[in-house]
């Protein structure tokens, strides 16, 4: 139905007018750019951090149970609350005070794009790294004990074992590939964290702000647009997002297949 709506207008203008409007809107291109960069980098960081946490939990250290619980904690925070957590006046306020008074550094400005954009990406990864970790841990549990024993026999250090045995197994696992792709897909539709930040930054109603992902761009277009209720354009953009995500998913799956075999 959305596909149908994307070809219709209230005034009965020619069918492709919505797509023409959309592609002519610089805010749309900026949002598409932001979305792609956001989802790719946050997925990459989440995978990196998740595998790092897996490394820690597969070593022989005490208190693994407690550590695992602590590492999982971010997983259940509502995304909109993640936007609140990493806002300037929550976590960054305290970090600023710490850096300033304990380490004697000058205050930094949280409201510049070179600061807040990495923070937004980081918060997305912060929330989802534990999921990667959980899946990676289950992969590790399925590796036969003999493999590690053989590695020990050859005198492999724990880092070598992890690099040469565990990491290839993780990326070979179809489940892990699936979860990584899933993370990319969900990040393409990311909405809550950018919404919170567009609020902190004062971009509440202007589409095309530097934190607008496609979903947020559509939200602003739909609910605070001067052009009324542009259902056709929004549908067109939603369909385009769907197409882009699907294409990205296909490429990513291919890529993971060739990497992991």
């Amino acid at each position, binding site marked *: 139905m959305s596909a149908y709506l994307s070809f219709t207008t209230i005034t009965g203008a020619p069918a492709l007018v919505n797509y023409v409007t959309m592609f002519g809107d610089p805010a749309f291109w900026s949002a598409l750019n932001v979305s792609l960069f956001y989802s790719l980098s946050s997925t990459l960081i989440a995978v990196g951090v998740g595998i790092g946490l897996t490394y820690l939990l597969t070593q022989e250290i005490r208190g693994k149970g407690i550590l695992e619980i602590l590492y999982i904690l971010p997983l259940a925070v509502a995304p909109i609350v993640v936007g609140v957590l990493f806002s300037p006046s929550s976590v960054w306020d305290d970090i600023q005070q710490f850096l300033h008074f304990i380490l004697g550094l000058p205050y930094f400005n949280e409201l510049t794009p070179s600061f807040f954009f990495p923070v937004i990406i980081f918060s997305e990864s912060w929330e989802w790294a534990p999921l990667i970790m959980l899946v990676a841990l289950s992969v590790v549990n399925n590796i036969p004990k003999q493999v590690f024993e053989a590695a020990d026999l050859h005198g492999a250090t724990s880092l070598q074992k992890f690099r040469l045995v565990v990491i290839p197994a993780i990326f070979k696992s179809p489940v892990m590939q*699936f979860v990584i792709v899933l993370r990319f897909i969900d990040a393409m539709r990311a909405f809550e964290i950018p919404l919170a930040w567009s609020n902190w930054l004062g971009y509440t109603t202007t589409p095309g702000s530097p934190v607008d992902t496609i979903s947020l761009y559509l939200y602003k277009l739909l609910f605070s647009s001067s052009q009324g209720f542009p259902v056709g354009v929004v549908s067109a953009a939603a369909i385009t997002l769907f197409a882009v995500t699907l294409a990205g998913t296909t490429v990513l799956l291919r890529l993971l297949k060739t990497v992991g075999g």
Partner: protein
Amino acid sequence: MDKLKGVSGSTPDKPARAKNGRRRGRLLLYAVAILAAFYSFWPIMIMGLEGYNIDLGPIFAGKALSFQLGGLTFAKRAIIPTPYYYLQALGIEAYPRLVGDTLLVAGIAVALALAVGIPVAYVLARVDVKGKGAIAYLLLALRTVSQYVVIIPLYIAYSKLGLYNSFTGIAIAEQVLILSVVVWMLRGFFSDIPRDIYEAATVFGKNEWQVFKRVVLPMVLPGLVVTVLFALVLLWNEFLIADTLTGVATRTVAVGVWEGMSINQLSFNALAWDSLNAAGFLAYIPAIIVMLAIRRYLAKGFTFGLAS
């Protein structure tokens, strides 16, 4: 000089050095593990503390009660711990109502998703279909659909049907959202049941429905519980659909936390920082308890039947 060191190091005291190195390695490992723990729970702890009106900034400044900074006095951010904001959030009429509404919406949505998802997942796991990869890919494609593709048609339809701002309306929309996850997870749990069991049951003359009800359902029950709980957490945290399709009267918790909880001016203001943190923390607690309870099975649920 360097050469000499290398020689003397490589012969007699090699074990000692290796031991030393290992100890240093272990220390480093512990340090990183603890740092990673901080990284994970620090923001959440801040949220919990700020709900109690405890701000860590002044402590770092070395002046807990008030301090001057460039002509600004930070005295009003002094630390006076108070449960006020939590009591306020729990005490006002709005919060319990939000929780009830959310559970109602999520309950309907999960029930709908199960009604559709169980048969689909069962057939996918039970019947040998040729293009297994293609079906997995199709399910993945279902997930790539933007929420707006669901929201806009429903928005228009609901305005005409009078379902806008109704529990049923939101539940139907959210069911679409979680359906793919439910099908995946259930398919994984169904695939875990060995083939022989189906065959044995069929040999004993049971029909398909009896096999499902008597044999498969009891075996898959733990997986079913995990799936339901996971879907409930997803819906508890869901924001976009809940925000766009609800009015003030049918808000869910996530929306309520963000926009301020009350219908009237019964208190809670989204701009009041401590209230926002307290409400966010309260919403977080049940979700994390459920998540921790199912964490062992979650990874198993995420196999989607692909591992077999």
